[in-house]
């Protein structure tokens, strides 16, 4: 994949999109084969990859008993960043959570929780952003926020991969589309996918 | 395959022969210990069993390190085989030690450094085999087992030294009395016999493990 492109990864539930993204984020080791991410070897240079890659999962890695700001602070410090309280507030304002900054995430709705995750993503400089079902749980405003972020990433030259089982959503924001089905990755005609508003339904017992 | 099997058979027969000769000599030929009587003859089985128990564990340790470095499942198979055989020798050592202890010192068990260490080593072995039963993926299983094997073995000398300290603070350690050459030679002979038994058992078990591994692989691919 070329650097700086925005790619939509579509396919039915259980096809392995999440698994693929987690492999790219070095959370899972592939059982077979080699690969490089941002120029670094997947198996041997995982640390360099993690420095440049951000992952957004469906639930997100967020602690219910910490406030939104504390979650952000944890994320930033674990990524090696040292930021002041103003910057955390600003990051939360960016995702529309400035009034809920000091509330515990346990009290948040799914959409608000997702916004915390997005704030965590945006706070770090990235070369590759991996978004797994980023639109799930968000209202129209939230989805517009994701699209904004994707646009900003593109302007900054960050590569973006959006995985979704809703083909229309993902391809709207992307330049290219790949479909992962039955263990095979193949290109899909981008305009056709954007127009199709296809939603893939999980088909029975699909072995990944 | 047939030549390997043939070699194993030869070693097996040799092991059996050596063991029979060693036992015969130990039981009937060599004079019994003056103070302890015939029960002392248990030593000819107890000591080699103990020696092999520790050797097996050392092999587990070595293979675990090799596996972690090279990630070759062959080392894991050797480790697993050695652990299983080692458990048998360890239980044998403890049982014989108990049998020896009762008439000699009047107790089934004593917190003697070697016995205690052996008992703890048994617990570590059991843990090693137990953790293997929790992973279906051969690489994961080998990795976890290797970790347990390494840390477990690292503990053995520490446990041994700690128990020695513990006991010496309460009573003086038992010093080995000088042994007559006949007893020594019989012991050495039995030691050699047991070592050959170990080699034979290992050859058989490793080959079995290899077949098990192939079966596992085939089942994974074809379902």
């Amino acid at each position, binding site marked *: 994949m070329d650097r700086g492109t925005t790619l939509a990864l579509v396919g039915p539930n259980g096809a392995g999109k999440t698994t693929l993204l987690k492999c790219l984020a070095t959370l899972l080791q592939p059982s077979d084969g080699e690969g490089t991410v941002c120029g670094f070897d997947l198996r041997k240079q995982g640390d360099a990859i993690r420095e440049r890659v951000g992952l957004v999962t469906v639930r997100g890695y967020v602690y219910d008993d910490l406030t939104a700001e504390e979650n952000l602070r*944890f994320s930033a410090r674990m990524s090696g960043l040292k930021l002041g309280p103003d910057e955390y507030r600003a990051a939360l304002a960016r995702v529309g959570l400035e009034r809920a900054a000091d509330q515990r995430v346990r009290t948040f709705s799914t959409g608000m929780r997702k916004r915390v995750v997005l704030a965590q993503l945006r706070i770090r400089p990235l070369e590759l952003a991996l978004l797994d079902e980023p639109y799930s749980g968000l209202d129209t405003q939230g989805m517009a926020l994701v699209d904004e972020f994707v646009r900003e990433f593109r302007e900054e030259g960050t590569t973006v991969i959006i995985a979704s089982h809703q083909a229309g959503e993902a391809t709207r924001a992307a330049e290219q589309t790949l479909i992962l089905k039955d263990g095979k990755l193949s290109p899909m005609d981008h305009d056709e996918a954007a127009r199709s508003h296809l939603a893939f339904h999980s088909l029975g017992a699909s072995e990944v | 395959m047939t030549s390997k099997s043939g070699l194993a058979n030869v070693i097996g027969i040799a092991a059996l022969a050596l063991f029979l000769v060693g036992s015969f000599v130990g039981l009937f030929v060599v004079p019994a210990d003056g103070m302890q009587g015939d029960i002392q003859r248990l030593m000819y089985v107890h000591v080699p069993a103990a020696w092999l128990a520790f050797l097996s564990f050392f092999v587990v340790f070595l293979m675990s390190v090799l596996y972690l470095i090279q990630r070759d499942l062959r080392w894991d198979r050797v480790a697993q085989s050695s652990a299983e055989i080692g458990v048998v020798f360890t239980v044998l050592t403890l049982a014989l030690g108990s049998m020896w202890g009762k008439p000699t010192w009047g107790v089934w068990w004593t917190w003697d450094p070697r016995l205690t260490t052996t008992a*703890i080593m048994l617990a570590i072995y059991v843990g090693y085999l137990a953790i293997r039963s929790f992973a279906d993926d051969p690489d994961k299983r080998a990795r976890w087992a290797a*970790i347990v094997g390494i*840390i477990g073995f690292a503990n053995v000398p520490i446990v041994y030294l700690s128990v020695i300290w*513990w006991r010496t603070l309460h009573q003086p350690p038992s010093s080995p009395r000088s042994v007559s050459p006949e007893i020594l030679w019989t012991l050495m002979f039995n030691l050699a016999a047991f070592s050959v038994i170990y080699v034979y058992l290992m050859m058989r078990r490793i080959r079995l493990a290899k077949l098990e591994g192939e079966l596992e692989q085939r089942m994974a691919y074809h379902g």
Partner: protein
Amino acid sequence: MDLLRRAWTIVWKDLLIEARTKQAFNAMVFFAALVLFIFSFALGPDTELLQQVSGGLLWVGIAFTGILSLNRTYQSEETSGGIEGLRVYPGDPRAIYLGKLFGNIIILLAVEMVLFPAAAVLFQIQLLPHALELAGVAILGTIGFSIVGTFYAALTVNLRAREVMLPLLLFPALIPMLLGAVNATTLIVVGDPMLDSGIWIRLLVAFDVIFFVISLWIFPIALEE
């Protein structure tokens, strides 16, 4: 050092959550006190006997209580996406081990601050004259327990029979540390005319150092998916 800073961030996170939910600490203190009480009850009113075995009972109580804490170590990550939530960040994954280790040590020491006085009452032993030495032994023993425990907890966190496997693996490995802690504590409390406690303290230190190095070294392999 970046490693320590990230480890400390994990400690901060865990202690903050613990302070807010108070789940573990309260349960542990209650459980520990209960265990000591049962021991004292079972052994009867013989003061001299109680004093002689006080060291052993105390450390058995600490070990059982410690296991509770260890089970929680990585389980607390479960609701937030599992340990992936820590592995996803850059930097040496050993920071996770160090962070969890420091957290466990702190919580266990906090519980012991309640436990030792409880033992003093239940077993009729004097703690104050030797408070400093006892504190030293408690700290060394707790560190040793946590070093090995945090490591094995990471190894067994995904196993089905975790509650059985963790003690099965942990207790044989802890024997030298228990010997050292129990003997040192008993000698300090009951009387140490020949100053033997020094040997045990040295054993504890050796144990701590050796297993810290080994655990730290091997941890990334234990964490592999």
